[in-house]
């Protein structure tokens, strides 16, 4: 049973809750208006700020300017952008940017941002300090290499390696252990460091790693010196059993393989795992000779459609001129093998037709044409398992 007084308390609770939430809503509305006013002011301020600093970074203005604490992120981000694109678009020399940073006294600002800022601030500060190779930043950068935020830890490693090159070994080992790092960023850092510096360390790290760790390193061998990469992947292929590592190593070996690697690659053409066979077919293309034709022909009847497809591509690329391409279809009895050959032949004719269309019709340039590094579809099988 419930008393009238109890019910009244309940209604009162509802009433005051409603009033409280309504008050909260009104506060949100005010906050919203304030946020808009602030955003308008901030946008104008940033536009003006960027215009002023752009002139300074391109050398059009030599004035020394104070940077307010709230502007540090924007100014340092802009300086970092100039560093990144200095050679191709801005035409600004690195020495000039360093000189500007020195004159404008950015270093203490960056160190302060690194100590006090949030994750975004720290990334910008670390990127700046890496470009500047500032010794003072090393202890802080080292400390941040263990930051739980992947992006911050990665930026910290970059800075630490640029300031203190022996740190590279630790960085490469970290690559093999951390899986929350954005691969493109790691790629850019390794490119920035250059193959001469990273190749040997990468090869050593891959030797001692577990299969899972090795996989994370091997994929970056494309950025290494070819001779070191070749020797390293040969080692991996000799003693590893993990199929993903083998496929990854074969993909690296392909572009740098020498004729003496044929025998090693042959072993993997009959590997029980399909994507290893696919990688092996890809690896043999640059070094194959007439003796390999029968091996590839056998793979044309493989149980996996991607192996058949890749085998058909290789057969047409390496062993058959265009006049004899049709004859190849007659040689095979298997229906699936014929299908794979038909598709690859059709792709070739489409390619020819496309070239014809491009030459004759000359359609207007279209940004939708694929940009960036391109792979053939089957090469993308690396992640398919």
């Amino acid at each position: 049973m419930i008393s009238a007084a109890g019910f009244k308390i309940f209604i009162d609770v509802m009433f005051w809750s409603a009033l409280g939430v309504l008050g909260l809503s009104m506060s949100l509305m005010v906050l919203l208006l304030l946020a808009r006013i602030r955003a308008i002011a901030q946008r104008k301020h940033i536009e003006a700020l960027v215009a002023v600093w752009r002139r300074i970074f391109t050398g059009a203005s030599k004035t020394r300017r104070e940077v307010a604490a709230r502007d540090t992120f924007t100014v340092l981000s802009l300086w970092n952008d100039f560093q990144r694109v200095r050679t191709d678009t801005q035409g600004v020399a690195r020495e000039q940017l360093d000189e500007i940073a020195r004159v404008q006294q950015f270093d203490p600002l960056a160190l302060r941002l690194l100590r006090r800022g949030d994750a975004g601030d720290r990334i910008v500060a670390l990127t700046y300090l890496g470009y500047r190779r500032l010794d003072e930043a090393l202890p802080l950068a080292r400390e941040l290499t263990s930051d739980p935020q992947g992006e911050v830890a990665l930026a910290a490693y970059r800075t630490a390696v640029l300031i203190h090159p022996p740190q590279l070994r630790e960085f490469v080992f970290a690559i093999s252990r951390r899986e929350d790092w954005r691969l493109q960023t790691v790629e850019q850092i390794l490119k920035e460091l250059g193959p001469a510096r990273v190749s040997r360390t990468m090869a050593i790290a891959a030797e001692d790693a577990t299969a899972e760790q090795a996989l994370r390193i091997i994929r970056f061998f494309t950025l290494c010196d070819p001779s070191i990469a070749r020797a390293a992947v040969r080692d991996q292929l000799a003693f590893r059993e993990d199929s993903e590592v083998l496929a990854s190593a074969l993909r690296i070996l392909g572009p740098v393989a020498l004729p003496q690697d044929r025998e090693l690659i042959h072993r993997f053409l009959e590997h029980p795992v399909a994507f290893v066979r696919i990688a092996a077919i890809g690896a043999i293309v640059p070094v194959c000779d007439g003796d390999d034709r029968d091996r590839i022909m056998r793979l044309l009847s493989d149980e996996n459609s991607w192996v058949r497809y890749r085998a058909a591509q290789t057969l047409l690329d390496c062993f058959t001129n265009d006049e004899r391409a049709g004859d190849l279809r007659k040689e095979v009895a298997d229906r699936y093998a014929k299908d794979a050959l038909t598709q690859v032949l059709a792709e070739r004719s489409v390619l020819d037709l496309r070239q014809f269309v491009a030459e004759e019709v000359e359609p207007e340039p279209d940004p939708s044409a694929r940009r960036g590094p391109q792979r053939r579809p089957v090469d993308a099988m690396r992640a398919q398992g």
Partner: protein
Amino acid sequence: MVPFAPHAIHNAVVASAVFWVEIVLFLYFLITNGIYVATSVLAIIQMPLFVKLHRADPIHHVYSPFELPVSVLVPAFNEAGGILDTVKSLLDQRYSEHEVVVINDGSTDDTLAVLVEAYALQMFPEAYRVRLETEPITGIYQSMSHPNLRVIDKKNGGKADALNAGINGARYPLVFACDGDSYYSPDAIQCLAEAFVKNPTTVVSSGSIGVSNECEFKDGHIVRRRLSKRWIVRFQVLEYMRAFLSSRLGWSPLNALCIVSGACGLFKKETLIEAGGYRTDTIWEDMEITLRVHHLMRKKGQNYRIAYTPFIVCWTRVPDTLGELWNQRNTWHRHISECMTIHRRLFMSSFAGIVGWLAFPYMVIGEWISPFMVASGVGFGFVAAYFGFLSYYSQVVLLGLVFALGLAICLSAILLDELSFNTYSVTDLTVLLVSSIVEFFGFRQFVTLANFSGLWAWLVGKPLRGRPAAPGWQLPPFNPERDRQNAQAP
């Protein structure tokens, strides 16, 4: 304040029962809205860092062979009017490597002809591999002008069937399920694929969807974000903000996202195939496939992640007439009903983790039975007040509380949008604020009725779009083993 009227109570037992029903209703609204507020708070905490990290990213938009290549699947049924804009916006993506696969699902209009004309399509003898059963394929076309565009022409089988055909034809390890009538921002794929690079356990990634009505588009790309002049669209803009910014962004860090929009979901292809592909016997497919992925991965005990990015990567047109809106909400609610019953074993199961113990129960309580609770709550309150068991005042207070909570959630979503994107003009923002109040007077009730009608239609097994629909509970429950067997290639 109007005092409680004891003279109106004729029967103390009835009065007590009424009181407890009132308490239950109060708690229901408090819990459902409380969870919404909690996800909003989570979203508000995450959003600034999200935006700042995005701004601080030193190598945004660098093409790299380390990005996983993506097959974009565009199911199209009678989309002759908009398909070219959609395909253009997808071909224009800033991404290292992607292909666009349009699946013409037996269109009876000129969809195929328009594509053939615009992209110089040629019939192509592709060795199509059947990993998921679909309606028969009638032809595969390759574009002569765009090497990364193909069209699969097939007999009509619905969107889910078309997506399954697209999965069979996809060449890359990630598949992006799209809509044939939506627009995609140039960095849509990059935004979504980022999750796969950052966390290898990611199996699905999705993003926010914006309302495109009356926005300015050029060549399939948004030029200016503008608020529609129609109130019905403005209210839906608010709904999208609440759904994507407050709700999904809040559920995402808990790895408990229960729905990945059909217009914007990037999936690991092998996971989709392992799950048996899209089900073709449900009304929609987006929520079902998301729950199925959760179900599959949880059952296997495998570490996985369903990621979400708050950035708007897709623009879609929302209904601008009451009739269209009614149909949409009706079918949405039928789909929710189907999903709740198909995946009922997720409900508080030992294997289901936070999905089974928090997200799925919230879907049941906060979404599925919500129209029933709202309708019965309002009905019960006013009937009880009419017969003198409750005061009208108490009902007004309860409604006031619901209104205040709803308004707070709505305003927090607008605030999130403002803090992160800041793309609406001052006038549009003011209109949105007014809309957030006005929507309580008619729109919300209309949507509740449409949802209720969907729930009812599902219960009685009302036919849909000319095909008989069995009551949802007669759909076979989730069974990965059976689905895998069905999915065996011949």
